[in-house]
């Protein structure tokens, strides 16, 4: 077996967001995505919401995919949700992940409580890989990106006390 290597040692809990990975350039981010980043900078999770039918949507788009309205606003949501799906990254594919030894880390799809199927991609911090599960309740928090203080990233924490 040429593809095998030794097993990966059990990992410490992930306690902080990733560093050194590419970040959005807020000067270039299109108009219909700006509200998301303005929200995180203000410490709020704002999700695009159709002004006509009231449905939330993410990823942001100029038009409501449900009712075709071009009018929308940015609504602050509770930041509560559950883990819809997740992966644990063991093998680094980016130099910053490899050089700063940031594996393992989790990537989670968080389903927000406001609407079925409304999901954002994020990390759940302060949880060991083996303790994440589908359906796990989480709540949002915000961390400024080290490399660009204008960018604030929403990340999630376990919320088992709900």
């Amino acid at each position: 077996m040429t593809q095998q290597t030794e097993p990966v040692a059990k990992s410490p809990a992930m306690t902080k967001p990733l560093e050194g990975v590419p970040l959005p350039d807020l000067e270039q981010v299109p108009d219909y995505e700006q509200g998301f980043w303005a929200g995180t900078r203000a410490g709020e999770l704002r999700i695009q919401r159709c002004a006509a039918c009231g449905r939330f949507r993410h990823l942001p788009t100029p038009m409501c995919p449900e009712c075709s309205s071009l009018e929308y606003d940015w609504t602050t949501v509770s930041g509560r949700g559950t883990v819809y799906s997740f992966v644990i990254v063991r093998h680094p594919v980016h130099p910053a992940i490899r050089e700063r030894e940031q594996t393992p880390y989790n990537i989670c799809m968080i389903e927000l409580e406001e609407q079925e199927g409304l999901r954002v991609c994020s990390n759940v911090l302060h949880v060991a890989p083996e303790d994440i599960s589908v359906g796990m309740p989480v709540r949002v928090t915000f961390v400024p990106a080290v490399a660009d203080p204008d960018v604030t990233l929403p990340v999630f924490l376990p919320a088992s006390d709900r």
Partner: protein
Amino acid sequence: MAPNIIPADTNGIRDKAAIVGIGETEFSWNSGRSELQLASEAIKAACDDAGISPQDIDGLIRYDMESNHETLLTQSLGIKNLRHWESVSYGGGAGNATVGHAAAAIAAGYANYVVCFRAANLRSGVRLGRARGPESIPGGADSFAVPWGNMAPAHRFGMFVRRYMHQYGATSRHFGWVAVTLREHASRNPRALRREPITIGDHQNSRMVVDPLHVLDFCQENDGAAAVVMTTAERARELRHSDTLTLVEAAAQGSGPRNDGIIYRPDLAVAESEHTARDLWARARLSASDMDAMMFYDHFTPFGLINLETYGFVQPGEAKDFVEGGENIRFDGMLPVNTHGGNHSEAYIHGLTHVQEAVRLIRGDSTAQPPHKAINRVLSCSSVAQLSGAVIIRRG
């Protein structure tokens, strides 16, 4: 607004076009030559198989990820009069979709000899499995994924796999049976890059890359090229393989809503192929039970299970039992799958090798030819986001 999906019930390409030649380069970790060189070699091999000259080609269907543009190819191949060309978007979905586009061009009379091809140094050149460079992101789906470390295909497709496991109780071991079977098929195939047999234990003990995906769930990243030549069914009867026509019976592409960024579709336990499959079977007026073999786009082994379900070979949730032990999906089993070894073990040419293997099976030329039954119809399909494609090849 209520969804209003008009059923696909017209099949204007039925049996109009035939695949008359297949060809490829060797598959390797470092081809040592240009992508134009690879494309020229594979297309020449496919023309030789068909019994035509590359100069006879008057239609080209390329992947939009392909570096070889029409001008380069007309120059290199000496094409006298290129009448029709198209680029089909997305990697994995495109393999089968190029054949559907070529069949449509032939049925419409736009071209006589159409070539579908893919040529790339996906190992020694830019590797798709690696993350992008350190530059910032100008918005779009990546800006909502990469800052959290979601930066490789396995990260996105792993989300499907986890959800699928959660919903249906499938385990990594089930994916392992797909890996073991594909490797066994590859062990019989001299073209294959990975030929050493593996056991279910090897799979389970292999390095975890992106949990739930072990390294033995991944396809290869390699250099190489593949091509198919197509023409009308009538013209095919005058060519080298006139004794065994391989006709394009039906083709489909499909996508549902919310496919940007791959991981936002409504239900991650199924794939975009639910749309492709619905239209394919409606157009063909056939079902999974009419297929003698299935070639599926195996970028990751769990998508064997997902394809079995979305194309209706088994009911949702039943694939894990169907693949258990590998007997059903082996070349000598009930439903032979990826008898060439697939992306997993033969080579990763973005799905075009699956179309070639469908042709080989009908000709009786596979290195893992099913000994127990005639192969008259083969489904070659993909399930991947964002857009999937499928084609039915049948004996004429």
